């Protein structure tokens, strides 16, 4: 089945770069041995070289030592390992976690799970643009706090938190800082030699790598226990046969990512927003209004008087893939908790539409999307009882 949609759901996942696929292929049929130590057989050593090469690429990108990169099955596992792993290491001596109300579910649900198992969690508010209040964070840290987990960029509205400032606050208070950077890695500079982060979640498939691969950066001496048992791989932090082909793909994706791609994303984002501003009345931007404080290539807006699922379905029929924060669209039939957490009305949440671009999108596509949205918004407003 061919996918000829204009795909603007890149915060969910991205197209695997064909060069990434090419880089991975030999690791299925040729270099398929289990990655082993240098004292093993040659096929095992070859796999190990592929693995280590990727680890080095990712470590270099973050300016850290490769021994601090632990490969996982993806962002969700990395977030689980970061939070449950540190909780376990503190063995109840400290049991307080701080995160924000708009974290990804793999952070929120993990915190809620730990709450049922003896942890105390503070969920920080965010303002109308999705930013946490650093003062509220500082005040929330108590003697019992062992971890602050604040995402770098928000999955829905794209708001970027000031992780440099947050890391300073955590550092001053002697509390470990975890950040989920799955959506910002390679798009924004993350020099962990400059910014002291203790744990950082990374994911391959958000950056044109394969699905099922991620990593957790674990700063040296961060107390953490493994969650899965059955071996010693990944520095005894994550047992299980390494997904070598996937990890090689991850490395390749990081190698390909460039500053030009980011500039392209910024151009697309601007083109789409300019198009809306010129052609559509009555829409509001959700998330940071300062475009430099959004994930590159993220635009989230609410169109007045209309509901999101109808927009998404009409757009799908026109060949454009986008999503909405509307309850109708979600499996839970609840409106987006991110939008509600930002203090918006149900109506604004139901009307929110997320456009997330990748380097494979074009400016012509953005113009086409603007035209389609304009037509659909006008048609739906014509039948809406809320207009006037």
């Amino acid at each position, binding site marked *: 089945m061919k996918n000829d949609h204009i795909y603007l759901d890149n915060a969910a996942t991205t197209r695997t770069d064909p060069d990434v696929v090419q880089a991975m292929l030999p690791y299925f049929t040729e270099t398929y041995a289990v990655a082993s130590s240098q004292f093993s057989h040659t096929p095992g050593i070859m796999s190990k070289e592929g693995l280590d090469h990727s680890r080095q690429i990712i470590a270099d990108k973050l300016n850290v030592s490769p021994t601090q990169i632990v490969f996982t099955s993806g962002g969700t596992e990395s977030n689980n390992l970061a939070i449950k792993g540190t909780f376990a290491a503190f063995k109840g001596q400290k049991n307080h976690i701080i995160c924000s109300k708009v974290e990804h579910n793999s952070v929120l649900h993990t915190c809620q799970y730990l709450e049922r198992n003896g942890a105390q969690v503070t969920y920080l508010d965010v303002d109308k643009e999705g930013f946490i209040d650093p003062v509220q964070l500082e005040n929330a840290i108590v003697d019992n706090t062992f971890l602050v987990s604040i995402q770098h960029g928000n999955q829905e509205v794209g708001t970027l938190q000031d992780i440099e400032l947050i890391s300073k606050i955590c550092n001053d208070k002697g509390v470990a800082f975890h950040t989920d950077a799955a959506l910002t890695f390679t798009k924004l500079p993350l020099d962990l030699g400059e910014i002291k982060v203790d744990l950082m979640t990374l994911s391959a498939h958000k950056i044109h790598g394969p699905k099922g691969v991620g990593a957790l950066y674990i700063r040296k001496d961060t107390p953490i226990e493994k969650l899965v048992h059955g071996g010693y791989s990944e520095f005894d932090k994550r047992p299980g046969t390494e997904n070598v082909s996937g990890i090689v793909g991850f490395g390749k994706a990081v190698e390909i990512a460039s500053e030009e791609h980011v500039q392209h994303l910024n151009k697309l984002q601007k083109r789409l927003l300019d198009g809306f501003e010129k052609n559509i009345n009555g829409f509001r931007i959700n998330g940071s209004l300062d475009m430099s404080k959004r994930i590159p290539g993220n635009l989230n807006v609410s169109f007045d008087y*209309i509901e999101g699922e*109808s927009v998404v379905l009409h757009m799908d029929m026109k060949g454009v893939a986008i999503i909405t924060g*509307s*309850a109708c669209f979600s499996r839970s*039939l609840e409106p987006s908790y991110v939008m509600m957490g930002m203090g918006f009305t149900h109506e604004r949440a139901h009307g929110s539409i997320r456009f997330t671009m990748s380097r494979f999108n074009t400016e012509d596509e953005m113009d086409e999307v603007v035209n389609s949205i304009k037509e659909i918004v006008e048609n739906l407003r014509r039948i809406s009882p809320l207009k006037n």
Partner: protein
Amino acid sequence: MSLPYTKKVLEHFKHPHNVGKIEDADAQATEGSPACGDMVKIYLKVDADSKVIDDIKFESYGCASNIATGSIITDLALGKTIEDAKKLNWKEAANALGGLPAVKVHCAVLAVDALRTAITNYEHKHGLVLEKKPTTEAVVIKRLSRVINPLAGLDVVKTKLVQEVKIESGNITVWVEMPTHHQFSSNIKEEIIERLEPLWDVEHVEVIFRGD
């Protein structure tokens, strides 16, 4: 793998029938609210002698099934007497659409409710209520429990926005615990009046905000 909607639902969604407003409608009704993510408004023109619905239009704020059910229910009701139209239920609407996903059935219910409420409103306004029960506080509260508080996504009674009503010789006063200039005050006021004014023995509805 395809969309979870039948071809028929998608047809009605893409090109809904009977869309719009009837300026001189004989009756109208709104069900749902933007807070819930679904809202349907139905307008009726009824022939005074035959009681046949000779025009019906709807407006929708909502998802595909909401729009499609609004379209099909107005198709089904057009040309029927109000007695027959009252008997339409959500199953008939859903069947006529070739089925709806289970989680979307509430949308069909909403459109059917709007049609029934519009007909009831017509009956009240035109002296067709068989049992002329006087409007009591219980009746008022029951009707107001369909008005949604947009802040909470629940109705104004449950969320205690309305705690006191007074009924006095055809005049109803409703006190709303919300500031006069709140962003939703005019919306709530309009909905409360729309819910109560059609009642056969109600002359006037006064909504007073007292959250200042």
